[in-house]
């Protein structure tokens, strides 16, 4: 693997952007600017950044409730994301989707998705369409280890395998589905075993190591582009904060210890890459400049959101149908 220093810097910046974005998103919940739940991606940044570093803009992804990282890594615009979180008309979905449903077909983002495991068959469909059209695009579907217990995920693995579709299953095993530990919810230690059960080449990688994720993804993408079918990449990772940002307010009794969390933080993907870059001669001044740049982009995004209009009441009745009919008084039904 020969990555230039510039490319490594980009990986670091990509991870920092996600971390700072999700830190800020949580404070916006506390400030009441963002309603509903925000599921922070913090701790898992190496996965989305590593994967996205080897795919193209015209490749597709589907994502889940913990999707800000996937979207940012795929080229998501901070302003439009912040505006969506803030329920503004300038957001990716005009404020109708919110944090869990950011979609941008232009960027190949076939949707983050609020229903666990349900983005996976949609990705299967995108991969099917690419195969049908005969192009060499690949599709990435991100899902958690919890989602790997959903029937839709299993059905999709089987279909991707029998039809050799250009689909890459990226399972982010952060060891918990809300409070439920994977050891107690899952019949095998590695979700990769499940891929093998469907005849899909499946590997386990250190999801806190952006280089490892990138290497695995590179191979999988190549296989998919060559028409050799799907791959499952299980990324062992960890989320540092609650299932959603407000978790401490509703869950008084923790389901994991501070020591456990701390032990994973020792493995932090951002710090690891920084140490690597220091060995390559990058100094603290550069890191500080990068932080400042990321900070500015995010704060600009917050300003953009706050200055953007909220939807008009009429908008609530728009966009459900591509074709409205004279006999369908969608507007005006109360």
């Amino acid at each position, binding site marked *: 693997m020969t990555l230039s220093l510039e490319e490594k810097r980009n990986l670091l910046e990509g991870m920092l952007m996600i971390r700072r974005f999700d830190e800020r998103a949580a404070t916006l919940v506390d400030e009441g600017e963002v309603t509903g739940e925000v599921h922070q991606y913090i701790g898992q940044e190496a996965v989305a950044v590593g994967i996205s570093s080897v795919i193209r803009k015209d490749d*597709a992804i*589907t994502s889940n409730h913990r999707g800000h990282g996937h979207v940012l890594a795929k080229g998501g615009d901070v302003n439009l994301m912040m505006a969506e979180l803030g329920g503004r008309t300038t*957001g*990716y*979905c*005009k*404020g*109708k*989707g919110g944090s869990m*449903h950011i*979609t*941008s*077909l232009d960027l190949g983002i*076939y*949707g983050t*998705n609020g*229903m666990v495991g*349900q983005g*996976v*068959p*949609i*990705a*299967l*469909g*995108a*991969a*099917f*369409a*690419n195969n*049908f059209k005969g192009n060499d695009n690949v599709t990435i579907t991100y899902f958690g280890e919890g989602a790997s217990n959903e*029937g*839709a995920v299993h*059905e*999709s693995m*089987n*279909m991707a395998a*029998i039809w050799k579709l250009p689909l890459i299953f990226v399972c982010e095993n952060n060891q918990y589905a809300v409070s439920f530990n994977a050891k107690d919810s899952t019949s095998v230690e590695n979700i990769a075993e499940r891929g093998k059960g469907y005849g899909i080449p499946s590997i386990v990688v250190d999801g806190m190591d952006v280089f490892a994720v990138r290497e695995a993804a590179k191979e999988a993408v190549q296989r998919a582009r060559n028409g050799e079918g799907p791959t499952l990449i299980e990324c062992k990772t960890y989320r540092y904060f609650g299932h959603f940002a407000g978790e401490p307010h509703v869950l008084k009794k923790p389901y994991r210890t501070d020591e456990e969390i701390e032990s994973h933080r020792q493995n932090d993907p951002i710090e690891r890459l920084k140490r690597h870059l220091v060995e390559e001669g990058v100094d603290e001044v550069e890191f500080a400049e990068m932080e400042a740049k990321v900070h500015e982009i995010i704060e600009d995004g917050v300003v953009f959101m706050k200055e953007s209009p909220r939807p008009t009441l009429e908008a609530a009745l*728009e*966009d*459900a*149908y*591509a*074709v409205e*009919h*004279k*006999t*369908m008084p969608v507007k005006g039904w109360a």
Partner: protein
Amino acid sequence: MAKIRYIQAVEAAMREEMDRDPNVFVMGLDVEAGMSGTTVGMVKDYGKKRVIDTPLSELGYTGLGVGAAMAGLRPIIENDINSLQYLTMEQLVNQAGKLRYMTGGQVNIPLTVRIVASGGGGGMAAQHSDSTYAQLIHMGMKVVVPATPYDAKGLIKQAIREDDPVVIYEPGACYGVRGEVPDEEYTIPLGEADIKHEGTDVTVVAVGHLVNEAVKVAKNLEKEGISVEVVDPRTLFPLDTDTILKSVEKTGHLVVVDDGYRFCSFASEVAAIVADEAFESLKAPIKRVTRPQVPVPYSKVIEMSVLPGKDQIQSTILSLIKQKQNG
């Protein structure tokens, strides 16, 4: 004009759209073999690329349809048992039905789902005998239930072209029905009802195969001097309320006939709309002919007793006419 069977009209609609648009494909259980009778020989003509057998993964292949539709294809998903719908509900109503709205109008989902042989009467017992459309219209999904070969062909072609998800129910009791279909190409817009039999005393709004039963009843009662108007909405949502209201304004009497279970049925919705918007025209209470709130039993005598049919339609009409005569 050729006289063809309903099942042939369904197949012809799909073939014409597949000829017209290379992005149309059909997918489902046993479609290559043509088990439903509507895709026979298609694989020979269109290849395995466009006529695709799926594993038994109803939720998964429906989701595949959603993703493929988002990516610009026009999938026709065939569910060869009515109740397979229950396994697909998440992808159907929560994804296909909502994603356009949730993405602020960014994505169109031109997905067509066909429910083969909906309804009961085939001795298949409760788990294979439902007419599941009320669940989808409740969610604002576009739903079509053609009663005749002409309507089936025109509406299925339009459904495939529609840029929204459309679910088509093909009642099993319609598959053998024969009818005229023009040689020229045509489509029927969604949301347009058709008056299948004109009359002045009672309006009957019926769905699917029960339209044909209602027409038989209307012809029967004509001999007794009772004039029944049979309105076939054809599309349950969007619903052509104008045609229904106009008919009720003329007759003052309404019977709604629906193969669903009674509570929250299509019949209930039509009754509510008419009560809201044409109350002054009504000369008697609205009557619904539906299934009772029990599953469909197996044994033939009791199976038919819970399914709405000709006798019930006729006796319900007569009860209204009697009220009219007494009053």
